[in-house]
């Protein structure tokens, strides 16, 4: 009788879950595309936007979409397991934001063996047989941020750059773009200091800049966390508005800082386009149409004019 009770519990739990699961799709669509993200959409606005872009597009194009993500962006094994299990189910195409640039390569080899095309979004991987990489052109974004400071100061004066984790390619490209844009319009980059993409370090570095380089009137920070830290330092010195701070990512808190005037601008990526272009191009590949090797999802300069859109 205890056996029956235990059997009952396990059975009920599993069956409830099976019913809760969104997977039982009855669509007659010919293709099923897997979107494997680095992190779950709930709780992270960036991944939520990627997911929304993919879902809207899949609906419009009439393909099935399966969205899966590991519980944390560091959980490489969970992502491998999810993708392998979906390959076993023979999804038609895989759109993936890999949790590691190379650890999933053997998994993608398995997809290739089944002739399943693999498209990278957001983060490029080292896998050689990828169909395309769809993501932000970070250098172009850096140029956008740099040009904003050029325009604000009419190409004259001292500026500084707060860099992030320089082993990260995206951060390096942003800095390169901003540096090139500011130099070519005549601004002088008098300092380039690392703050590890961390908010507290950004604040500390900004304090040092204010002390050692008082002529600096513009800052490009390679992400918003550092920019917000820098804004904090500028505010506590009573220099709000005298030093213009440009960040990157346009996270909601940075958009609010732009609205309140403690930050001047930020550069937004388009996660929605990553999901949208991912599904669009997966379908192109499945219907034997050509797909470009590199697809830019675009960047947008966020200033007081449009910050309200990003502030929620």
């Amino acid at each position, binding site marked *: 009788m205890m056996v029956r009770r*235990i059997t009952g519990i396990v059975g009920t739990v*599993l*069956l409830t879950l*099976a019913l809760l699961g969104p997977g039982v799709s009855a669509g007659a669509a010919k293709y099923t595309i897997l979107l494997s993200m680095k992190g779950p959409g709930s709780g992270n606005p960036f991944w939520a936007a990627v997911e929304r872009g993919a879902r809207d597009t899949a609906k419009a194009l009439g393909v099935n979409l399966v969205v*899966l993500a590991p519980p944390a962006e560091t959980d490489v094994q969970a992502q491998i*397991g999810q993708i392998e299990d979906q390959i076993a189910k023979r999804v038609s195409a895989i759109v993936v934001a890999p949790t*590691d640039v190379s*650890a999933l*390569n*053997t998994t993608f080899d398995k997809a290739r063996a089944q002739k399943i095309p693999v498209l990278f979004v957001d983060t490029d991987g080292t896998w050689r047989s990828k169909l395309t990489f769809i993501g932000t052109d970070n250098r172009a974004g850096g140029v956008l941020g740099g040009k904003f400071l050029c325009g604000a100061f009419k190409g004259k004066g001292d500026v500084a750059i707060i860099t992030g984790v320089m082993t990260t390619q995206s951060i390096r490209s942003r800095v390169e773009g901003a540096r090139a844009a500011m130099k070519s319009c005549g601004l002088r980059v008098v300092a380039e200091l690392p703050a590890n993409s961390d908010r507290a370090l950004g604040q500390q570095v900004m304090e040092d800049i204010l002390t050692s380089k008082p002529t600096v009137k513009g800052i490009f920070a390679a992400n918003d966390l550092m920019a917000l830290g820098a804004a904090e330092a500028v505010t506590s010195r009573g220099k709000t508005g005298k030093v213009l701070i440009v960040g990157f990512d346009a996270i909601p808190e940075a958009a609010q800082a732009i609205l309140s005037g403690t930050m001047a601008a930020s550069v937004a990526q388009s996660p929605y386009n990553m999901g949208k272009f991912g599904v669009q191009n997966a379908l192109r590949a499945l219907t034997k149409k050509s797909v470009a090797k590199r697809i830019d999802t675009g960047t947008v300069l966020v200033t007081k004019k449009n910050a309200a859109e990003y502030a929620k």
Partner: protein
Amino acid sequence: MQLEGAPSAKAAIVRRLAPSHAAVGRFGLILVMALMMAILTILQPAYFLTRENLTNIARQISSNAILALGEFAVIVTAGIDLSVGSVMGLSMIVLALAVHADWAAGLAALAALCAGLGVGLINGLALTRLHLPHPFIATLATLNIARGATYLLSGGVPISGIPRAVRLWGAEDITLFGGTSFPIDFPISFLIVIALYFAVWVFLTKTSTGRHIYAIGGSPKAAQYAGINISRNLTLVYALSGALAGVAGVLLAGRVNSGYPTAGTGAELDAIAAVIIGGASFFGGRGTAGGVFIGAVIMGLLRNGLNLMNVSVFWQQVLLGFIILLAVYLDVLRRRAMRLEG
């Protein structure tokens, strides 16, 4: 149920019922596993029982199963090893660095194993020589030390490219019964898992050292009076756990063809979950290697099944929690039955 009769009659009935209760405890786990497989077969008839999917599951659970095996040996002594996930990551990076320094594949794997063994020894010695109050503390320290070392050694970036001689342990299949009419392609990593579980089972139940380890967990005082060298045995158990985490790292590195610094983050909790689901007692002295094996398989089935049904990982976590509760409840039932029996 007329149990209000004479005490002797009640005892007789209890005695008659008790063995079946104990059987629930013993076979309950296998039952849960079989039930999960049956349900998955019904829900995913086209995919679950395919060879591809079953070998996927076998490979996916290999590293957790091996971490759980080491964790089990520690938990039998009423201890805990929080460092296994970090140690697995460390051994992966050591392996990747060694092969990139052009070490022979076997030597590189040995270095990875020694890295695991070394951290395990530190855990054991910190507990027995430095007399740190609880293994939670020593292994919490090495969790951080090993993870930090992993980031330092790798510079925070993945090191990819493992030679095939190492990769095949984690990624490839071996053909069993090749000469017969039933050849089976079997994942090598899972074969290693089975061999290790068998070896540890023999060690813990058939050797005097193994029985001492159970005795230490059951009652340290009694073990001491019986003249068992507690320090030596504890050090041995933690070293074993570290070495097994090293093996898990070699298999995982082979599977993903790289060493990445975040590997194994939080894996210690999965290992502990497998041990608990497998019926080992957190207070030491009880549990079997076979039970832990089934515990690891149950976790693998759960993940695989929910992945096949496209269920979000959050549900997987919720359900894993329920399975842990259920498994421990099962254990409580068994113990109650055994008390009645006694």
